C-alpha cells in the first residue's frame, strides 16, 4: 500500500474514531464517555471529508456533535448521581459485547466485498465452492461499476464538491428521488416536536 497524506489522515481519523468509541464504553466516568463520543463522531466527519463528502462531514459536526452529543452531555449532567461512579455501571456487559460482535460481523460481511476481494477470499476458505469467499466474490461481481472511475482516476476536488451538494439537494426533492421519505421524515419530526412541547407543558387547566 502506498503511503500518501490521505493514508496518514485516514489513519489519524480512524484512530480517533475507534479509540474514541472504545473509550466511550471503557471509561468509568459517564461524562468522559460523552466527550469521547464527540471525539469519535469528529473522527467520522474527518472520514467523510476524506471520502469527498464535505456536506455530510459538516452535517455530522453540526447535528451529531453540535446538537445530539450536547443533549447527551446534558442528560448526564442533569441526572442525579450519575457522575463520578467508580464501579461498573451494570453486569450486562458480556451480553452487550456479544451483540456488538454480531453486529460487527454482519457489517463486516456486508461491507467486505467493497474492500478487498482477494484478501477476504483467502481468509474465508479460499476458492472453495459454496465457501463464504466465493459467495462474496459473486456479490462483488454484482456491484455496479462506475465506468468513469477507473479511467479518470483522480477527479478535481472542487468539481466533486459541487456535484455532491447539488445532487443531495436534488435527490431529496425530486419525484424520482427521495421526496416521499423526505416529507415523511419532516412530518415525523414535526409531530415529535409538537409532542415534546405538549408533554413538557404544564397543565393550565
Amino acid at each position, binding site marked *: 500500500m502506498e503511503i500518501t497524506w490521505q493514508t496518514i489522515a485516514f489513519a489519524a481519523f480512524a484512530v480517533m474514531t475507534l479509540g474514541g468509541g472504545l473509550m466511550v464504553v471503557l471509561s468509568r466516568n459517564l461524562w468522559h464517555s460523552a466527550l469521547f463520543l464527540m471525539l469519535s463522531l469528529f473522527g467520522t466527519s474527518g472520514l467523510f471529508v476524506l471520502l469527498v463528502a464535505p456536506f455530510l462531514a459538516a452535517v455530522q459536526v453540526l447535528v451529531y456533535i453540535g446538537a445530539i452529543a*450536547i443533549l447527551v452531555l446534558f442528560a448526564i449532567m442533569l441526572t442525579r448521581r450519575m457522575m463520578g461512579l467508580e464501579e461498573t455501571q451494570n453486569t450486562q456487559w458480556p451480553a452487550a459485547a456479544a451483540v456488538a460482535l454480531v453486529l460487527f460481523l454482519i457489517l463486516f460481511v456486508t461491507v467486505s466485498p467493497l474492500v478487498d476481494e482477494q484478501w477476504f477470499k483467502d481468509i474465508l476458505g479460499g476458492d472453495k465452492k459454496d465457501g463464504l469467499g466465493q459467495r462474496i466474490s459473486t456479490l462483488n461481481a454484482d456491484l455496479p461499476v462506475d465506468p468513469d472511475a477507473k479511467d479518470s482516476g483522480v477527479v478535481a476536488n472542487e468539481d466533486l464538491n459541487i456535484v455532491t451538494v447539488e445532487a443531495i439537494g436534488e435527490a431529496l426533492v425530486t419525484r424520482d428521488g427521495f421526496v416521499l421519505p423526505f416529507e415523511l421524515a419532516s412530518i415525523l419530526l414535526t409531530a415529535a416536536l409538537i409532542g415534546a412541547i405538549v408533554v413538557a407543558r404544564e397543565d393550565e387547566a
Partner: protein
Amino acid sequence: MYYVSELLKDAGLSDGLANTLGIYISVILLATVFLLLPIFTIWVERKVAARFQNRVGPNRVGPFGLLQSIPDVVKLLGKELIFPRNVDRIPYMVSPVLMVMSVVMTVAVAPLGPNIIGTDLSIGALYFVAISSLATIGVVMAGWGSNNKYALLGAFRTVAQLISYEIPLVFTLLIPVMLAGTMSMQKIVDFQGDNYWVFFYAPAAFFIFVLSNLGEVGRSPFDLIEAESELVAGFMIEYSGMAFAMFYLAEFLHAFLIGVFAATLFMGGWQGPFVQDVPALGILYLTAKAFFIYFLTMWVRLTLPRFRIDQMMAFNWKFLVPVSIVHLLITGFFWKVLPEPDVTGNFIERLWYGAPRMLVMFVVSALLLGYSLRMLRNAILRVREETTAKLREAYPTAHPTTAPAGD
C-alpha cells in the same frame, strides 16, 4: 491561498512548489494575523467604550494608548495557571483551546479578496455554522470541568442560549445562500458584485443575523453566560493566566468575525471600486465594512443593559425565530416571482435594470421588520402595563415608579 501562490509564481517559483508553499504560508498568515488581531480590537473596543462613557480610555502606553494591549498580554503570559482542587484536568485544559479553535477555523472560509481566501469550500456557509457550534462544547467542558457551581450554571445557560440563537442565525444565513444559489462564500461575494448587496434585498435579515451572532458570542446585552452580578464570571470563573486569556481572545476575535462574515454575506465582502485590478484592495474594503459592523455591535453592547434570561429566550423564540422564518419565505417568494433583470450589460446598466426588483424586495423586507418591531413593542408595553397594574394593587400608596420591581 490562491493569491499567495500566484505571487510566488510571479516571483519565479515552479507551479508545484508555489502551490505547496502558498498553502503553508497562507495558513500561517491567516491564523497568525487573526490571532493577533484582538490585540488591536481590544484597544479599539476600550477606546470606543471610553467615549461612550465619557472617559478618555487607555492613553499612557504608546500614541493614543495604542500599545496598551501588549503589556496586558505580557502580564497574562506571566500569570500562574491555577488548577483548583478536583477539576477535571483534561476537559478543563482542552476547553480554552477548543474555544479559540472554533473561532479561528471559521477564518478559513472568509474571502478577503477576489482570490484571497483560505479555501473556497463549496459548503462554506455550512462549514461556518458547523465549526461555530463547537464553541458550545468548549463552554460545557469548562463549566463542568471547573467543579464550580457558578461555572456550571453558566454552562447550563450557554447551551440554552447558543443553541437557540443558532436558529435565527441559520435562517438568515440561508438568505444570501438562497439568492446566490450556492453555499460557497466566494461565489456569494461574486453574486453581490453582479447584483446589489444582499443587504438591499433583505435588510431585516442583516439585522437579525448580526443580533443572533451577538447572542452566539455572548456579549452584552446577551452576556448571560458570564453575568457578573449573578454568576461572577460564569463558565470561566476558575480560569487564570493564559487559559483565561484564550477565552478572552476567542470572544474578541469572534466579535470581530461577526463583522467579517456579516460584511461578506450581506454587504458585498471585498467588493469595491478597482478591486478586480488590485486584489489586495479587497482586504481594505472588507476590513472597513467589518469595522463598521463591529462598531454597530459595540454600540449595542455599550448602550443596552443585560437581558433577563427569560427575556432573552423570549426575544429569540418569540421574535427572532418567527421573523426570520417568515422573512426567508417572503424573500424566496419575491425572488422567484419578480422578473430576473438582464445581467449582461456593464456595471451601471446592471444596477439600473436590477433596481426595480431590489426596491420591491427592500420595501417588503423593511415593512416586515417595521411591523414585527411594532408588534414586539406593543407586547412589551402590555407587559409593562400589567406589571404596573399589579404593583399599584400591591402598593396602593406608593407611586408606581418608585415601587420595588416585581416580576
